[in-house]
């Protein structure tokens, strides 16, 4: 049994009278590739917002590398190794892709060093290396507004990776992409996974989930209703009823 990286215990999140997450328990092992599925509005994004700190949970705990993250701001969690991509890409639109990556490189990876001493070229070089790795090598210095949808998704992942995370949460990085584009993004995620990064993938595209995940959890109406191997999950009657439309 490998080491536990993330442990979510009894997580509760309410929006007024609506309970978006109801006693969610989830553990993620170091190096695991976890798929998170569930119908629209089931609380997937709320769950990762609570893990990444964008939302404050009303109950329960999020423990990462043995540390309780409750009360920590998102940027503090990013510094501890949690990075995420956004469902709808949110690039820094006034900056080039290189400058986009320079932000996490300066604020997380080289924090403190970059303030005065660190030469600029270093950050630039690292940003270039990550962008090349993500297949954005020829788009490094153009305006973000000229990037295509799939390139924006890759930029999201690249910027998340620039923070050198140990846990990457990918929020529907493939939604709306063509099959070949999906495969490109999936290939990137596989590569990141094999380099030792733990990945939680939220996705509606079942064939991507089936191929990518070592384990799948299914949320419905704020509750975890099933957990298991991808092949088990699709046969699970609860999942079929809630999500797969059987």
């Amino acid at each position: 049994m490998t080491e536990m990286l993330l442990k979510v215990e009894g997580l509760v999140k309410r929006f007024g009278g609506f309970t978006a997450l109801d006693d969610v328990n989830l553990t993620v092992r170091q190096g695991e590739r976890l798929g998170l599925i569930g119908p629209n509005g089931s609380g997937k994004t709320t769950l990762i917002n609570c893990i990444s700190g964008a939302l404050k949970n009303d109950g329960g705990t999020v423990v990462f590398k043995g540390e309780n993250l409750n009360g920590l701001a998102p940027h503090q969690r990013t510094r501890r190794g949690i990075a995420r991509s956004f469902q709808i890409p949110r690039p820094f639109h006034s900056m080039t892709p290189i400058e986009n990556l320079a932000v996490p490189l300066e604020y997380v990876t080289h924090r403190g060093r970059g303030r005065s001493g660190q030469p600029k070229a270093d950050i630039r070089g690292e940003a270039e290396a990550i962008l090349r790795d993500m297949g954005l090598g020829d788009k490094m210095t153009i305006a973000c507004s000229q990037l295509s949808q799939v390139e924006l998704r890759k930029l999201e992942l690249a910027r998340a990776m620039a923070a050198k995370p140990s846990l990457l949460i990918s929020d529907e990085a493939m939604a709306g992409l063509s099959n070949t584009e999906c495969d490109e993004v999936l290939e990137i995620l596989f590569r990141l996974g094999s380099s030792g990064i733990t990945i939680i993938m939220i996705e509606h595209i079942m064939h991507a989930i089936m191929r990518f995940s070592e384990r799948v959890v299914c949320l419905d109406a704020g509750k975890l209703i099933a957990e298991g191997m991808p092949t088990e999950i699709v046969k699970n009657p609860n999942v079929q009823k809630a999500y797969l439309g059987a």
Partner: protein
Amino acid sequence: MHQGHKHFLIGCAIVLALAFALMATVTNEYVFFATYVVLQFVVLATAWNILGGYAGYVNFGSSAFFALGGYAALVIFKWLALPLGVQIVVAACFTGLLGLGIGLISLRLRGIFFSIATVAIAIIFETVITNWDFVGGAKGLQVLRPEPMVPFTSYTKMLFFVMLLMALGAVAIARYIENSWIGRGLRAIRDNEEAAECVGVPTLKLKLIATVISGALMGAAGAPLPMYLSFIEPVSAFSMNYSVSALAMPIIGGTSSWLGPVIGAVLLGTVQQVVTVTISSELNVLIVGVLLVFFVVVAPEGILGLVRKLRAPKVQPTGQTRGQTSAQTK
């Protein structure tokens, strides 16, 4: 980078030399009286731009910081009779702290909600000052100017020089922020605050740094006001005109760089002064309004953006000729 630094220092030296030459040769006090106002707007516009331009948080309450700077200076003068330098430092500290407090309360609000909060804050403080008798309340307070300090022959010249130093200081601070980790973080916040936070930018901390510096500079700009007019009263000190000018000038000049507010303030401030003398002082407001509408529609990125756009086509033809020559070689 270092080259730019050198050019900036040379620019500052030239401006200072010009100021000394002006003070040595020109005897007409009005020149200094009018230039003071332009310089005051350089400080105010630069201060506004640190929060409004770099971080994208539009402050409609600049007049509150400006006026409270003036009133803080007045209190120090009336209560302890301390010199102008001390008044300015105390005023800047006070409005800087005020910026911190207001920031802590209002920076949770984003976009237009933050802006509305700043308007409310200006109204609250104007009401407080209007009802405070020590500083003259609604009817204001007359101030007797002390003698000018030694090298200066008149108090107006001294105020002019002090404001010039503050303008250079404000621009230097804005320029430093722009090129530092603070500026890069603020730019990320302006582009997308949630994404900035998620890639490790401490957004609240950076926004607070920006409000404190911006507030302190606005207070410093207002601190010499009682001495400048020999009089201060709440309606004119808290005038919406300051708030509007503070945001109109950077928008007209261009908010992306420290140079924008300087261009906007010098241009608009000078036009206003000329119009005040030649036509009427009431036309000022109209000019600001018309120019603002014109620039928002025609050049939303201000004069700097316009210049960049005009320069851009010059690059393209060279690219084409390069393309043509390569085609010819083929």
